[in-house]
């Protein structure tokens, strides 16, 4: 077929779509601005401007860090996994998935900076690393993971396909991905001071949660990009992702139950205290909410073919999954922090002048923390936007032309 006009590249969409695009850019700019302002404010006042205390020493920043490391799993594992089993069904998602993963790791690395009391001294970790510290291991694996995402993207964006290199990379990616999530879990899991975290299941649990949130996020972003551009992945990818998600959610839930049941039946005080907090205490709304809206509801959508066939519903379920995993991170961090081993009056020192002593610290993030997190989100969204515009949309345009030229071949290949 002949087209008179040059193939419509998504970088120059029809005039009526420019409005939303600029609105999106403006939103990103505002988000980044809020983040920078909040962080600047924190730099001048120290971490005293956060809601953290000498008891709850880690809070929202660390939750976001855990969460971002987690969502980075989805993309790379989907690509590497289908590559290793020789499936090409997800191929159209490859670039997008790698961009989402790479962005998430980069954002995770950035998200740890505001948690540091002295970010200007972070180089000490390079010149004087203490090799026993899981934090040092995490820095190393995150660097490796980021590099892998970069190499994957490079391979995927070569004009000629490089199936062999992609396969080799897939073989490297999977173990490193497992390591990234395990090491992040071990940051918490190795601490004998926190019985709630000090369990062998934490690493598998981090991996399963990572798979849920990562895959769900790829689904959401794929759907969004499809809506706002001419990029059109084959419709079966959404169904494929949904089926994967059903499995991931089920495994994630199983591991959580296995842990909670073990802790619960032990009936020892230091196991029960955090559980009480989850079941009926401070964290209960978030805990039951997470199970109902973050696990059960989305699972039904993923598992029931009639429901998952409705893409809108599927995307809503994926959003719930992502939120559910975020809530789960909070529910892992807070009980561990709230329950000191020695908890006698008058409690821990407040940490700030006039803070007195507090026996039962309640952690509530301040606007500064929310502001910084908004900034990190905007940073991630900016990277994804740039990546999608640079590498996904042009490919879509090229393939679009390709499909029109050889529609039959394409159809034959996918069957």
């Amino acid at each position: 077929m002949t087209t008179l006009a040059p193939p419509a590249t998504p970088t120059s969409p029809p005039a009526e779509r420019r409005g939303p695009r600029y609105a999106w850019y403006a939103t990103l700019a505002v988000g980044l601005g809020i983040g920078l302002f909040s962080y600047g404010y924190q730099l001048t006042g120290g971490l005293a401007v956060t809601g953290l205390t000498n008891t709850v020493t880690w809070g929202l920043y660390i939750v976001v860090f855990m969460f971002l490391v987690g969502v980075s799993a989805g993309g790379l594992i989907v690509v590497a996994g289908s590559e290793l089993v020789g499936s090409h069904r997800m191929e159209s998602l490859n670039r997008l998935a790698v961009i989402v993963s790479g962005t998430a790791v980069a954002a995770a690395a950035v998200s740890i900076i505001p948690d540091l009391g002295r970010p200007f001294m972070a180089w000490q970790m390079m010149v004087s690393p203490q090799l026993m510290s899981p934090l040092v291991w995490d820095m190393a694996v995150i660097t490796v993971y980021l590099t892998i995402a970069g190499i994957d993207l490079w391979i995927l964006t070569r004009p000629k396909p490089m199936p062999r290199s992609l396969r080799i990379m897939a073989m490297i990616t999977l173990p490193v991905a497992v390591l990234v999530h395990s090491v992040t879990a071990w940051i918490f899991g190795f601490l004998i001071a926190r019985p709630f975290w000090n369990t062998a299941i934490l690493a598998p649990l981090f991996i399963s949660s990572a798979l849920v949130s990562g895959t769900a996020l790829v689904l959401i972003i794929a759907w969004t990009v499809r809506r706002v551009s001419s990029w059109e992945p084959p419709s079966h990818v959404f169904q494929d992702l949904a089926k994967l998600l059903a499995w991931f959610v089920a495994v994630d839930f199983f591991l959580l139950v296995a842990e909670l049941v073990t802790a619960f039946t032990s009936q020892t005080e230091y196991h029960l205290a955090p559980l009480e907090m989850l079941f009926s205490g401070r964290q209960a709304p978030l805990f039951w909410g997470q199970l109902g809206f973050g696990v059960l509801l989305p699972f039904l959508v993923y598992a029931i073919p009639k429901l998952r066939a409705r893409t809108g519903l599927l995307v809503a379920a994926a959003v719930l999954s992502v939120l559910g995993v975020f809530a789960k991170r909070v529910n892992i961090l807070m009980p561990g922090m709230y329950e000191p081993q020695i908890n006698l009056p008058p409690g821990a020192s407040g940490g700030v002048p006039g803070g007195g002593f507090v026996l039962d610290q309640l952690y509530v993030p301040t606007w500064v923390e929310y502001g910084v997190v908004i900034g990190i989100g905007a940073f991630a969204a900016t990277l994804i936007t740039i990546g999608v515009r640079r590498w996904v949309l042009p490919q879509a345009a090229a393939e679009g032309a390709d499909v029109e030229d050889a529609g039959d071949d394409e159809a034959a290949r996918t069957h």
Partner: protein
Amino acid sequence: MPDATDVLGSLLAGGDPNEGQAAMVERTSAIEALPAASREWGEIDARSDAPRWGMLVDTERCIGCWSCAVICRSENDVALGMWWNRILTAGDDLDTPKVGEHGQLEMEWMPLACQHCSDAPCEKVCPTAATYTNDEGIVLVDADKCIGCRYCMAACPYGVRVFNWGEPEKAPGVEEGMVQARPVGTVEKCSLCVHRIGEGQEPSCVVSCPAQARIFGDLNAPDSRINRLLHDRGGDQLLKEKGTQPKVHYLPPRRRRSL
């Protein structure tokens, strides 16, 4: 040369980066200037060639007066809102002491500071080796290396570390301590008054205790008072099951103190 952060920190605080250092030397020699009687009172008893410093808290003698907690703050220039050393009270809250047998109220205190663990969880997780154990078994924090990640605080089972959340503030008119103040964004905790040990003096909290409930000494010296007491009366370590092997020991009360 002072490093960039220190300069930045003190610029924020409006001070001279070298000031603290010079002041520390000056103030440490202030110990030498103490009257002979005070020096003698605080002198460390028997010590071996390779000392391993430890502390013993006799909970039978402790009267919960907070003297040691307060002198610790001035000795070590601990900023407002932070305590290296606290006195915990048995019971559910401060107003209601523990209820014992037959409904009697029981009084019991547990002075709590860093336990100077021989297998210190805080040291193992510190990414920069800012937390370290010195040759004499004292767990210390090198503020110059600390990046303020607070991993050590999450790792310490005893909850004794405190963080400089903001620029350290002093109560107006309060004299500075015997050591340099730590900058904003770093972690700190009991140092067993390492600067005093160097001068042959016991930690401040030991000297100040009106009930003489604190005994300090060399765990490696067979005839040090701490070792003799440990030998005679046993002694507990807090959260022993965690395997941290604290060098701070507690003597349980031999008789109950009831109201």
